[in-house]
């Protein structure tokens, strides 16, 4: 009987995981790289998390890989001597990952090796990661990051995190949620009966700035230390306090305030709270974000009749319009390499989409095909971005690669999901 219950339980958890990891790839690369991640050698009993299965999810999530299902594998090699390349060539696998897991003094130790099936040689020699039971997913993501970087030469983002707002109706509630990038391990950081808006990670990944109404009936900008969840109110000006953005050195916050009559861009020193006004125009200036060098700000303004993105130099105050394609361009964010500006774009007669503009040539590329897209947030490796969209009447998260070749939708959560913020590397 006890056995039966255990079995039932493991089936249930399996189902729960299967559902959670079901990211729908709506468009992948033409020829994904095939990778085989073999179940790890393990002599103990049931483990709370299946590391190879999490890794397969990671590689699928990248959109560039196809992970071979374990049911199709002809053998489960545990060591290099057990690897028969022929078994893997038949499946078309280009890379093979094998590993083992051991448990000692309350810690799990995972070691793994990577083989290049095509060249029939070892690609990555035995490496090891360890952690407690709560860190099994971290171990899996860490291995995925290492293997991904070895194969693609691009730093992996599987260990990065996501913060987003989830909104519930009846009773109305807003939650600020921290989760793994694959949607697992959702943890509420803050709950409120009033809207929570515009979460952004500090560059060191330890703090988050956001806007909420928690101090009364007007919006204020807060900074929360993620580890302790201790909050600090940064602004309480009359009117609007919105759209915080960290400077690249993490010492300043750009924001939009209407304390002087109408919304303008300001920069605040986080430590001294010293405030400096950057724009001055009777039109609305909003949604500031920093250039890579921290020397200028991009912001949205309707001073030209329609919302467009402008750039202002902090040293000279010189302002310049940046976007010209479309009758609506807002919420600009620069990619980590500083080459593209990602924004919310609308062309006449079309829907709101996420687009990327090459800052040098001015060429604009529309990235998303979903409807009512909003709030793009770029991955720290610059390869992908996450945004909020609507699917089946619900706010969900979607991701697209910056070259528009890979597109995916995350499964719906309980509430409406909005405003994803992709963390920096930790």
């Amino acid at each position, binding site marked *: 009987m006890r056995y039966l219950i255990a079995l039932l339980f493991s089936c249930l958890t399996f189902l729960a995981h299967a559902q959670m990891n079901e990211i729908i790839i709506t468009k992948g690369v033409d020829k994904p790289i095939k990778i085989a991640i073999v179940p790890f050698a393990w002599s103990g009993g049931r483990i709370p998390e299946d590391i190879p299965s999490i890794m397969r999810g990671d590689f699928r999530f990248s959109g560039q890989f196809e992970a071979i299902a374990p049911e199709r594998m002809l053998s489960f090699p545990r060591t290099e001597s057990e690897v028969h390349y022929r078994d893997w060539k038949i499946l078309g696998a280009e890379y093979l990952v094998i590993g083992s897991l051991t448990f000692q003094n309350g810690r799990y130790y995972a070691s793994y090796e990577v083989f290049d099936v095509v060249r029939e040689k070892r690609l990555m020699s035995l490496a090891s990661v360890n952690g407690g039971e709560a860190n099994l997913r971290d171990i899996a993501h860490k291995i995925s990051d290492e293997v991904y970087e070895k194969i693609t030469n691009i730093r992996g983002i599987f260990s990065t995190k996501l913060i987003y707002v989830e909104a519930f109706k009846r009773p109305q509630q807003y939650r600020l949620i921290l989760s793994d990038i694959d949607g697992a391990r959702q943890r509420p950081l803050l709950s409120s009966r009033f809207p929570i808006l515009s979460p952004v990670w500090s560059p060191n990944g330890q703090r988050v700035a956001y806007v909420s109404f928690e101090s009364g009936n007007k919006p204020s900008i807060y900074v929360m230390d993620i580890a302790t969840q201790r909050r600090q109110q940064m602004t309480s000006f009359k009117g*609007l306090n919105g759209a915080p953005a960290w400077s690249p050195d993490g010492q300043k916050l750009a924001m939009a305030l*209407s304390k002087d*009559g*109408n919304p303008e861009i300001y920069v605040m020193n986080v430590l001294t709270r010293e405030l400096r006004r*950057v724009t001055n125009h009777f039109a609305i200036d909003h949604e500031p974000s920093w250039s890579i060098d921290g020397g200028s700000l991009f912001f949205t303004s*309707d*001073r030209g009749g329609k919302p467009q993105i402008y750039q202002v130099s902090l040293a000279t105050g010189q302002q310049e319009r940046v976007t010209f394609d479309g009758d609506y361009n807002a919420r600009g964010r620069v990619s980590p390499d500083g080459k593209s500006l990602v924004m919310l774009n609308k062309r006449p007669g079309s829907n709101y989409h996420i687009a990327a503009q090459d800052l040098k040539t001015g060429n604009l590329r529309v990235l998303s095909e979903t409807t009512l897209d909003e709030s793009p947030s770029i991955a720290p490796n610059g390869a992908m971005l996450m945004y909020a969209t609507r699917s089946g009447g619900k706010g969900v998260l979607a991701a697209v690669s910056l070259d528009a070749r890979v597109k995916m939708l995350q499964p719906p959560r309980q509430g409406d999901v909005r405003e994803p913020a992709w963390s920096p590397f930790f």
Partner: protein
Amino acid sequence: MFKLFLAVAVFVAAPVLAQVRVVESSPRGVNSSGVAQPQYAEPANSDVYSQIRALQEEITSLRGMLEEQTHEINKLKQLQLDNYMELDRRLSGGSRPTGSPDDSSTTSSVDTSHSSEPVGSVDDNRTEKEVYDAAYDLLNQRDYDAATREFKSYLNRFPQGLLASNSCYWLGKIANQNGDLEEAKNWFAKLISNYPEALKVPDAKYDLGRVYFNLGNKNEAKAIMQDVAGGSSDAARLAKKFLRDNF
């Protein structure tokens, strides 16, 4: 988000404007508009207020037009410069035979690359592949005007590039799509005569045949279709079908 914000802002801004408290903490910077924050302490009546609103709207729309036209002018200036450089390149390298390279042609090509380099590197130092990919992406997004510009810039910079024949082909296709049959004809003909070895030649011939047909030049169309139909390419299959259907 911005829209919502706008609605709220107007709502919030209205009473604020009426009371007027202009705090000019940092007058630096925004010199571009030159329009001072309205300072009407007690609006005599709502008329003044609505007039100001109307003027502000007028100014923003004029500003928008000015920004867009400045942008257009800058683009045109750049294009003119590009065209001039291209002309210069052609004139200085014009006498060079297109075929076998000899000593004089190599020196002249070195000269031209020198003369065009300053501009080329300032404005565009993308690789051959990057220029082509950008153009091809634009084509995929159906932004034909921009794609045309990019393919032309590819041809200007890499007339003997690996993808020059493909660029001609897509330019022909775009012109055809835009209904500019003469232009389409020129691009396909250019491909066939300049890059006779290119993989796209059968496709270009087939498309050229169709252009001739649509221009009413049935004899040319038939001749070229028969030429293509002799091969074993996909274009040959299409050409056979075209001949069956139309002749």
